[in-house]
Every structure is written in C-alpha cells, then in structure tokens.
C-alpha cells in the first residue's frame, strides 16, 4: 500500500531539519514494546544515525506506527509498504511479526534520487536475513533478555558493519535506478558442463558424508563470486552466498578494503572508507549509550559481540582454511573460535568452515549438534577434508579456471538483461560494465517498468498466492529504446534494447530468441 503526496509529511510534523545530514535514516522498532506513555523509547531497537535526537527518532517511529495501524484496517495481512512524500521515501519492512525495519531516504540529498522501493526493501531484507543467520531472530534475542539491550548491541554492530559496504566517500550510497538490472538477495551461478557437474557433485557427496558421521554436512561451493553448488535451501543459499561474496571470496579477501561488492563505482580508497566507518562508529557509540541510562561517550558494555560483517577480519590460514577471530577465542587458548550460524530452513546451528583453493571457495557447514568435542572435532573434520578431497578440489579448480569465460562470460551482445528465478533465488544479468553503457533514459524507463511489475506481482500474490500469473510488457522509451519485462511461471526477464529497430515485432522477436537460446524457451510459451 502506498501513500503519496506531501500532505502526510506536513501533517505528521516531520521536518527535514530533523533528518541527519546524510539524508538517510534506518530504524528498527518492536511495536509490542513501550506500549505505555513515557516508555516509547523502549520500542526502539536501532536507530541510525544514532546522534539523531530522541524526539526525532520517536516522531519517525510514531509516524510509521500510525500508518501501519491505519493501513491494517484495510489490509490486515500486508500493511503499509512505502510512504512516498515529496521529499522523503519511507520504506517499510516487517522483518518479524511486529518488528519493523524502516528506511527513510531524503530525496533531495541524492543526485539521482530515483529508485525502486522494492530495491530499498531488498537492502532491509538482506540485513535482516544475514542478522538472523548469524545471531538468530530478533525475537529470540529479545526473549533472551527482555530489556532488549542484548538485541540492541547486536543490531548496532551488525548494522554499522553492514553499512560500511554502502559507504562511498562520506555518503551512504543507495541502490538507485542504475541498478535496475540487478537483484539483491539472489545468487549468481556459474554455468558448468555436465561432466563438471558430476565431478562437483562427487565432491559434494564426499564433503557431505564424512566417514564416521551419520549426519549430512551441508556445503556451498563458489568459483570466484559465482555459485557452483549448494545443498542448502534457496533462502539459506542466498544468505550464505551473499556473505561469501561480501567477506569470504578471494575477491573479497584481497580487496575488502576498497571495493563494494555490488557497486559499480569502485573509486573509493580504503583509507577514506575506514575512517568513515570509525567516525560513524564513534558517533554511534557515543549516543547509543546515552539512550539507556548511561552517560554519553561510554562504550557499549557487551564488547565481545561477534561482528561477522566486520571488514578485514578474515584471512587465509596456512592450511587453506579461512580464519577469523571475530567470534572470539577459545577459552584458555589463543585459537580463534570457529564461527557458527543458523540455518533458516532447519533451524539448525552449524559451524562455518571455509576452505579456499585459488578461486574455489568451499563452505562446509557442520551441525553443532553432531560434534561433541567442539573445536577438536572441527579440526578432525578439517583434516579429513584435506586428506580426502584436496586433490579433487585442485582438479576442479583447474578445470573451472580453464573453462572460465571471464567477467563478461554472460554478456549477450545487443542485450542488457536481468534474468530472475524467484523460486530458486537465482539471477543472471549483463555484466555491470556493459550495463553502464546504457543511457540514463533507458535505465530510468526500465526502473519505472520494474516498479510497475513489482506492484503487479504484489497484487497477484494478494489475490491468489498459489497462482503465478504470466505477464509481459514491451515499452518504447523516450530515447527509442525498448524496455521489456516478461514473467512466466515464476521466472522474470527484464531487458533494455537500445539499438533495436522501430517495430514491436522486432523487440518481441529479440526476446523470443534470447529465451530460446539462453533460457531453454522458458519465456516463449505462447
């Protein structure tokens, strides 16, 4: 549900003066908390920027909560999703029942302030699902410690670390219309031959059933920043994949200082980045403490909160396994503790073991419950892995590297495309360098089209969640480019054709060709 117009803005008393300089605010609140007058602050689990006065924080939350309550009257299942005002966008995401994440963006602060609200929501979703993967759901954290302090500390560090990826210069850079041929929260896969696939499956089965264990270990295999194999559910795969690309892949390890994994603009220098982060952190630290009966400037009390998204904390050990001390050290030793994470599908807590050989990253998830003797057991599993499969890994890496087509491997000349498989959380798109060749008009048109499709998808979902609707749109943009969207049986194809000829026939032929050639005819059903 959308709210449009500046009426809302004025009537709710939101003024731009209250918004911090960066033009962006995040907040997470639990609407079940702080029900009584005077305890409203208790609702707030996280607010960014934290130096923002409580009055402003509360007014943002008040507005959002009010809208949510109001819209629930008409739509109890899906309350408000976005408020589009003249100067601000409020993007809503109900991460867990009654726990809301809100992103407020000030349009005037961004030169290219055109985005899809769904893309912004994607950021919120990603933060939340990664958070849950590492720390468990917010609800359990709150239940564990009803004061909420525990959850707040975790959120604070997690959010801060996450935002470093979006910080370019001194600004937080949001996914704009330029990223309309990208989809956050999806996995990019490497296309492999049949022979290669069976070799990899052979590796996966050996990884999955170590001798002596009767549980199956899950694994994820990446080649560079592309997924090769997974045994996890699509959602778990997407989360872990995102984490790998952000922090674990060879690329992330070597350039984690300077590059945003998703950003096209790779100019920022590590130094500026780090300083920004620390500045932000310091600022956050300062005011964070004040909000809860502590004097300003005090460091958060729980310092040993694991910060899985902290940058530059992973490195490659001598045995090929990646190590980090983010999870602290074993009691009484200086050995780093093996990270753990939660699988969404099985609600299982697993150790995270990452082995890297050249471009190949192998993530092995060992159920915590399967190892009685913790770190010792992990060491044993690691040894076994080295013994049994290191040769296989070398062979596979070699063959994949040989067959690897480079960054532009999935470029299809003449097309700028995004292919989405929502069921499996997979996407494939034209390489970023090729997308940048599109003119601004084409990108804006496609962004607009995607926005429309997002709405249409939502409507279908509400009408009949079981039934997927096919959908097709071919639009001639201002600059005579064709922008195309096609949905068929849960798969989505978005395209921009700039050098296409005049006729619609040509455009639809182009889609047809693409579909037959690269999608096994998935989009040429009728």
């Amino acid at each position: 549900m959308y709210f449009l117009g500046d009426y809302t803005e004025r009537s709710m008393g939101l003024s731009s003066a209250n918004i911090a300089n960066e033009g962006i605010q995040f907040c997470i609140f639990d609407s079940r908390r702080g029900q009584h007058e005077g305890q409203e602050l208790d609702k707030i689990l996280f607010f960014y920027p934290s130096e923002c006065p409580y009055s402003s924080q509360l007014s943002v939350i008040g507005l959002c909560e009010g809208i949510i309550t109001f819209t629930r009257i008409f739509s109890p299942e899906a309350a408000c999703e976005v408020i589009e005002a003249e100067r601000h966008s409020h993007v809503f995401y109900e991460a867990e029942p009654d726990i809301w994440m809100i992103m407020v963006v000030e349009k005037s602060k961004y030169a290219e302030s055109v985005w899809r609200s769904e893309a912004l929501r994607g950021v919120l979703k990603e933060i939340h699902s990664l958070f849950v993967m590492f720390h468990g759901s917010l609800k359990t954290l709150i239940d564990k410690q009803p004061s909420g302090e525990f959850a707040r500390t975790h959120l604070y560090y997690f959010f801060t670390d996450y935002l470093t990826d979006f910080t370019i210069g001194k600004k937080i850079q949001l996914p704009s219309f330029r990223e309309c041929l990208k989809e956050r929260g999806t996995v990019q896969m490497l296309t492999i031959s049949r022979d290669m696939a069976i070799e990899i499956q052979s590796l996966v089965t050996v990884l999955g059933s170590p001798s002596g264990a009767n549980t199956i270990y899950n694994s994820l295999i990446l080649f560079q920043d592309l997924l090769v194999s997974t045994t996890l559910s699509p959602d778990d795969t997407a989360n872990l994949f995102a984490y790998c690309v952000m922090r674990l892949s060879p690329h992330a390890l070597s350039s984690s200082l300077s590059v945003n994994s998703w950003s096209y603009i790779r100019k920022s220098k590590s130094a500026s980045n780090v300083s920004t982060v620390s500045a932000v952190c310091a600022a956050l630290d300062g005011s964070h403490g004040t909000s809860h009966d502590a004097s300003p400037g005090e460091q958060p009390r729980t310092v040993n909160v694991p910060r899985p998204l902290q940058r530059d904390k992973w490195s490659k050990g001598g045995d090929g396994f990646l190590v980090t001390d983010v999870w602290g050290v074993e009691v009484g030793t200086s050995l780093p503790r093996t990270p753990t994470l939660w699988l969404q599908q099985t609600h299982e807590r697993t150790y995270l073991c990452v082995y890297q050989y050249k471009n190949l990253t192998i993530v092995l998830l060992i159920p915590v419950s399967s190892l009685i003797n913790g770190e010792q057991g992990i060491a044993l599993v690691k040894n076994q892995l080295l013994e049994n499969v290191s040769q296989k890994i070398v062979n596979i890496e070699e063959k994949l590297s040989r067959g690897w087509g480079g960054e532009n491997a999935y470029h299809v000349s003449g097309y700028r495309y995004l292919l989405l498989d929502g069921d499996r959380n997979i996407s494939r798109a034209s390489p970023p360098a090729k997308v940048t060749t599109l003119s601004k008009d084409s990108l804006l048109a496609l962004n607009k089209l995607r926005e429309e499709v997002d709405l249409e998808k939502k409507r279908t979902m509400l009408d009949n969640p079981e039934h997927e609707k096919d959908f097709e749109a071919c639009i001639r943009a201002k600059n005579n480019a064709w922008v195309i969207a096609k949905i068929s049986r849960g798969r989505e194809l978005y395209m921009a054709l700039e050098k296409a000829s005049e006729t619609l026939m040509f455009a639809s032929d182009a889609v047809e060709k693409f579909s037959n050639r690269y999608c096994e005819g998935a989009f040429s059903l009728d």
Partner: protein
Amino acid sequence: MFGSSSRDPSSAVLCGSGALSHVYIQHPPLRCNIPETHGLFYDDGNKLLLSPTSDQVLSWKTAQCDQYDPPNSDSISEGPVLSIRYSLDKKVICIQRSNQEIQFKNKETGKSFSWRCKSGSESILGFFWTDCPSCDIIFIKTSGIESLLYDAELNTLRLVEAKRFNVSWYVYTHESRMVLLASGMQCTTFYGFQFSSGGIIRLPKFEMTMVRTEANQKPVLAVEDVHIATIYGRIYCLQHDRAGMILNLYRFYRDAVVHQGTLPTYSNRIAVSVVDNVLLVHQVDSKVVIIYDLFLDSLAPVSAPLPLLLRGASVNGKQAAQVGDNIAMSYGAMIYADKWSFLVPDLICDLDHGLLWKIYLDLEAIAASSSDIPYLLEFLQRRKSDTSKSKLLCLAIMRSIILERRPVSIISSAIDVLVAAYSHVVKAGSALHGGDRRASETFPDSSTQQTENPGSLFVDSVGGTKNNKNFVKQESSSRAESKSQQPACTNVKNEHFNDAAVSAAPGVPAGSVSSSDADTDLESRNHSTQHPEMSLSGDSSAKETRTLMQPGRGAETPVVKGEESSIHAEAFENRISSIESGISSNQGAQLSTAAISPDEMYNFVFAIVEDEMGGDPAYLVAIIVEFLRSVFKEKMKVHPKLYVMTIQLLVRSNRYAEVGLLVINKVLEPSKEVALQLLDSGRQNLQLRKLGMDMLRQLSLHHDYVNLLLQYGYYLEALRYARRNKVITVSPSLFLEAALATNDSQQLAAVVRFFSDFTPGFKSTAEHSRFLGILTEMS
C-alpha cells in the same frame, strides 16, 4: 570377505569348491591309453595328441576334450617314431624316424618320401610346420635352421633358405610361432626367429644369464628350463635358473628382447602353463602353483602358492566327486607325478596313464582370497574363458562391497574398473564392425595392408623426420592403431583386445614400458627425441600379435556387438535369479565378455542393493554419483531408471537443492521418466515440480505438459501453449471445466470463445451448447 552378504543369493558362487586351491584340473580327463601304442606326441600346430602304433597313428583333438570320441587314425609305415606332426592342412603326416631322416606321407595320394640330412656332420633336432608365406616346414639341425617348401604334387621338398650356426637344442611353440635356438657352451646364447604369416622376423642374438654357484663350474642351461609363453598376445620367455632359484622373464619385441624381471621359484623343477592369459608357474617339487597376471607388468603373484586340485565332474561338483570313480579318488595322490608333461598352453599329459588334463582357474576361489577389490575386478574382467562366471563374480563383488559400506573411494575405483572395461569392449566392438566392413569392401585379405593404409597418411605428415622410413611407417601405423583402435581390428583376437587395452585401461602407466623399450631398441634410439613414448612396446607387440595370430584361429573369434548391452538389459529386466540364465543364454551367439554395461549395473547392483540398504540413502547416492561420473567420463549412457532412483534417494533425505542442480546441469539426462519422477517428488516441493514441468516442455511432450498445466489450474496458459504448439489431443471440456471452476463468467466465456474460434466443429458439439447454457445462467 563376502560372508556378510549371505542374504544375497548369488553370493553362493563365491564360496568356491571348498578346497583351498586356485587352479584345478577337471575330472574326467581325455583318455589316450590305448594298448599297443608307443608313446604320446603333441602336435601343437593342429592341437592334436598323437599316438603311433606299429602301422598307424591315432589322433585326439585336444581342443574339445570329449573323451568318448574315438581317435582318428591314419596308417603309417612301420618304423621308429622320434617325433610326429601333421601339416597345418592335415594332408601330410611328417615323422622323424631318426637323427638323419624325416619321412613325409601324403594322406590323399598315399605317397611318401624321406628326407635325409648329411650324415655324420649334422643331425636333426626337430621340425615344425609353419604358415609363413615363404615356406611350409622348418628343420632344426645341429648345424642350423632350414626353411623348405613342400610341393604336394611332386611330393618333394624344396629348400628356401638355410642359416648356419651351431644349435644345441631348440624350443618352439606354434602359439607364438617363435623358435629359440640355444647355442654356446652353456647353451645360453640364443637365436630367435618368428615364422609368422606376416613373414620371418629374426630377433637379435641374445644371452640368458645364470647364477654361478661355484667358482669354476659353469652351469649348462637345459631345454626343459626354457619356456615360451604367449600372454595377452605378447610373447615371453621364461628361463629357470635352478641354482639361483629364480625364473627370468624376458619379453620379445620385434627387434629387442627385454629382461622384465625375475620370479622366485621354490622347486628344482618347474613347469609353466598359461590359462586364460594367466601365467601359472608349477613348482613341481613342492607341488604348488603360483599364478601371475602379467598384464600390467606386475610381477606380484595374484595370490599365495596353493596346490593344484583335482576336481570331480563339473556341474554338481561335490556330489559327483563323491560318487566319482576310483581313478579320480586315487589319482589325487599322483598330482605332479614325474611323468607329467606340461603342454602349451594349458594342458597336462600324464604319459604313464595316457591321460590328458586341462587346467582351469578357480575364479571364485581367487576372488574369495583377494582383498584388493579394484585389482581383483580388473583381473576378472580380463578373463575370457568363463566370462559369465567372471561377470557374475564382478556383480556379486560390487553388491557386497556396497552392502559392506566400504569407503566410497574404493567403490569408486572399483566402478572405474568395470566402466572402463565395458567402454573398451564397446569401442573395440564398434571398431571391429567398422574394420570388418572395410575389409570386405577394400581390403579383402590382409590386415597388414590395412593398417599400413591409414598409417601411410600419417607418414606423409611426419615425413619431415628424415629417418628410416620403415620405422616411421611402423611407428605411425601402430600409433594410428592405438589411437583410433579401428584399422587393425579386422583380425582381432581376444589377445589383441587385451593388448590394446593397455592404453585404455585406467591408471596404466603407459609410458613405463615404452621408455624401457626405447633404451634397448637401437632403431628407436636414433630418433627417439620426437616421440619416445610411441616407440614399440605395446604397439609393436600388438603388431606382432596381429601378424602372428592371423591364420587358423580367426574363426574362433566371434564378433562383439554394440547392441549387446541393450539386449542384455531387455532380456533380464530383473533380479539376480535371472542373471545366471540370462548371461549364459547370451553366450552362444556373441563374443562373451565379462564386461558389465551400465544397464546391468543398474539392474543387478543398484536396484538390488537399494532394497537392502533403504536406511542409508546418502551412501548409495554417493556411489551412484561416482558411477555416473565414471560413465560420463567414458561418454556412455545410463538408463533413466538410475536417474529416477537418484532423485528418489535424494528426495528421501530432503536434498532438493542437489536434485535441482543435477537437473539443471543435465547430469540427470532429461527423459519422460525423470520428468514424471520430478513431478511426483515435487508434490512437496514446488521447485522440483517446476523442473519436471520444464523438462516435459523441453522434451516437447506437449500433451503431458498441457494436461499438467490444466491440472494445476493454469488453463489460460495451457490454452496459449496448446495453440502455439498445436496440441489438439487434450479435450476442450477439460479447459472448460477448469474455467468453470473459477466461477468467473468472463474467463469461461473467453475459453468457450477460444474453442468456437479455433476448433473446427466445436460449435456443433454438446459441450458447446452446455457451456453456453451455463454462461447464460451465470450472466
């Protein structure tokens, strides 16, 4: 080792005969003990056992040991018989009467004549008939060797060529066409000739070594200490060094003799047999036999030394043995008697009793005592004599190692062995086919011609290497041969398959033999820089085999058919009980091979073990994955049932992600069976269901696809798809009912309209009027 698989009915075959032995002779023997005969002679050229009486010669065919067949007889004139051999066409009987005289008798004309050597200066050591094109018979004399032509019409001999040197004694086997002439004080200097249908090959002179025991005593090599053995089409010579207690192993190449190593001996007297390309070294004094498989040039024995066993009558082994006649019982004590003569390759003749025994390998016993499974499987796959037994054993071994949950790595290498063996048979089979066709079209007679033909193309391209043309030619032709494996196969024997297998078998250090050969081979050393690995070795011996083995035995080689596997699969759809009958019924028609097709692997291994180990899908999946990997590597196909099973097993442990990847990467080859299984398993998982739908669509199974769309309520999509792909087999009423179920009159109207417009004659059907009626009611 196979005990745990006792539930598996076929494991009974693994129990063997109970007695501890790997080699046995089978009762009853061929009896040649007819009174009034003077001795027994073995004519290995014709595989006849000959026994002369005063005026005739009796002959038994040793190939089919049917004891009740009376011997053939031919009359001969009286006189002493030192040796006797039929010509290869059996028209001439040739008898050595004395050291100076050999008598020839033409059976057809009845005429005979005698041939004498110079008395005094030389004496005849022996003779043999040959299928060499330039001569018919070879005489070996103390003064050298003579090749002669026999003229049937004139009934005379004509000397072709004589080579002069001192000969102390000689060894010849028709199987190898190789004669070794011993000379020198110690009889350790050898001249070697091969009289094959391809011509005469003279080997370089070579020395055999003997260990000296005492300072001034030089041992003399005796004729009974030198054995020629033909194994996998390669020719070996085994020289027993009594003092050193070793058996020296030499291998003959076209232009070299290479010492391959030594085998230990435990007896003053040893004998050598070759059964089904397995080398048996009989330690006569200690009454045990040691078996070796020289395929990979490994000199390690296949198993520990065990005695030779005398077995009772075949099929119902034990009972018959108990009932068996007294000779069998009492003969057991006479194993390795003094008067035993070991005939090439696998016969034992008891001269005292006039009995001829054939030696057999007890594959079950060997299997039961071997713990190196991949090696054992390779060994069994190489056996040609009882292929159905080898095959059953291999299948049983596979089942039991899976049921025993051996480590996946071991099972993986076992699978590799079987798959590689099958792939090799298929390739050789199709090559054989091609070769045959070519032979009948263009090269009616000779295989040498044929191999040189593709080779000569190669010669041109390699022509730049300014070397001995002959050699280049030879090299390139043999290379072409090993590469494509097709041109040389016209006259292929089993041995040839095996030899070529050197290059195909997995894990075979192909270069190792060659490099050592290159060292000894002068010719190749000159220009070995270019392709050292190509020089001779396996290739050249394959060539030898080809030329050696051409005549006579060609007819024995049946044809491998590519379709064999599918015939197998269809014939025995299920279960072990049918395996035995199935495999044996198959034998008559085609070349029997122990190779196991992927379909048989599914039917006789995976399908069976799946039932037995339902509780552990992960392990079985791991094994199937290894199997698929192995099969894909050989570019072979797998029955969709195996894919279906894979999906079922993965789904059983909720491994949906892996199923998805396997389908997307086409590891599970698209087929209707697989698609239906995906749809079935997809009842709990939307992704699988979609994959199944996609697969149906990609397979152009339009009818099923449209039906499924309807089933899931996508009737508009189904309509569009049906129109696009011209599917008219789905009844309109199904679409109409689906539209009606939505209770949306607009939708229903659209569907009715669709059929009215696009389906001729629809308007006149009862359906049309019925749904029109419904529509009017609705509106």
